[in-house]
């Protein structure tokens, strides 16, 4: 089992979701986060004072998958989120020790899907 965490541009969320659905990956958790990578980019100006090094809004996806879904999930996120410009985001893949479905108390791979 793996936990896939992806940080993407907020406006790409719809496209990423659509690509994930095509791969039958339906269980995702989404949160709004702030951050920046190398670009340290900002375009905001408050009353004439340009703010630099500002944190930008991003969207964070968390997706727990069984091994056979890892590559399709990664490909789907890339397909939906990639523009080729800085700021497209990152994907992290972590080993997942355990997964428990609260309703049934099932554990492991069966609890993920």
């Amino acid at each position, binding site marked *: 089992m793996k936990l896939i965490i992806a940080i993407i541009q*907020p*406006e790409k969320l*719809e496209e990423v979701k*659509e690509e994930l659905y095509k791969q039958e990956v339906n269980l995702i958790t989404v949160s*709004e*986060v*702030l951050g920046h990578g190398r670009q340290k980019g900002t*375009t*905001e*100006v*408050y009353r004439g004072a340009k703010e630099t090094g500002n*944190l930008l*809004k991003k969207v964070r996806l968390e997706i727990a998958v069984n091994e056979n879904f890892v590559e399709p999930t990664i490909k789907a996120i890339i397909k939906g989120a990639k523009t080729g410009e800085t700021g497209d985001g990152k994907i992290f893949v972590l080993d997942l020790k355990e997964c428990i479905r609260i309703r049934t108390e099932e554990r492991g791979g069966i609890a993920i899907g």
Partner: protein
Amino acid sequence: MNAGDTAFVLIGAAMVLLMTPGLAFFYGGMVRKKNILSVLMQCFILMCLVSVQWVLFGYSLSFAPGEGFWGGFRWLGLNGVGLEPYADYAATIPHQAFMIFQAMFAIITPALIIGAFAERMKFSAFLTIIVLWITFVYDPVCHWVWGLGGFLRNLGALDFAGGTVVHINAGIAALITALVIGKRKNLKKNIPTPHNMPFVVLGTGLLWFGWFGFNSASALAANGLAVNAFVVTNTAAAAAGLSWAIIEWLKNGKPTIFGVCSGAVAGLVAITPAAGFVSVIPAIIIGSMVSVFCFFAVTALKPRLNYDDSLDAFGVHCVGGIWGALATGLFASKAVNQAGADGLFFGNPGLLFIQAKAVAITLIYSAVVTFVIYKVVDLVIGVRVKEKEELVGLDITQHHERAYSVLE
């Protein structure tokens, strides 16, 4: 000159001004949070832009006496518009009091159109379109209906506080703009829901309050007619809010605050042309019926005709305005206002025909000129933002600001 009348009209003008920020919050709450500042900005900049246009040449084009296309240039820069009354418009208040009261109507009318193209218009294109629109659509139509020598005024069409000039005019311009600018992106996948419903309620409250200035002070005197307008305005808004809630309850199972607010605004729109000509029972009929028509326009007509009028500027203001103008032809009574006329239910079917004619002329003129203005501006500077800018949101891409921070 009358001190009471002057004070009343000035306070009325201030109340109508407050309607534009009220509208800004009404609309601003309805858009997604990445676009609220663009809506507030568009409304607020109109207060600046139209105020200057109005004193420089807008008031002259609208109200300088004359039988032509518009009023002409005699009162440019308020030349000759002084502190003495101009009896043909208002005999008991300074001419400039009438002028500034009218300025507030010229501000809010283009602001109403914003609802149709919200979330996807370039700011530079917005400014250009609006300057052309108030000059070539609002000012002439205002002259025809209210200006001395205006042909619809001479025809005997009744429009107490701007059902035709303001609401039908802006509402049809909204439909045309929504049709030519096209739909917002990802509309099917991700139906945009209002990001801040409390703002919608706040905006509606400010609009309802300001509308007393809009309709009541249109009597241009602190007198019985103003009281009649005040009472029927409140009654129609109330009846329409109730009616919309009942329709929702029957049709969708639950009444919503958004529905009550939409109904109240529709009721205020519908009573606007009639406020100085009808009594209180017709006001209840006008109010409760307008919600039926507007609910139908917003929930059935819009999906069927498949246009994206983002915040229903057409469905509420044009549809409500047309009903109000025709209802004036049904329910107007000389017992309420000697200077008015009797409507169909008071033995004069001719008025209904005149009202319909004024509505049709305004619809056609505003639609055609709005279309031409849009196409010209689109050709020269382009009207719609780039797809990426639309996805990121207009606050950041058009104004380099955002409304809400996540941390702090």
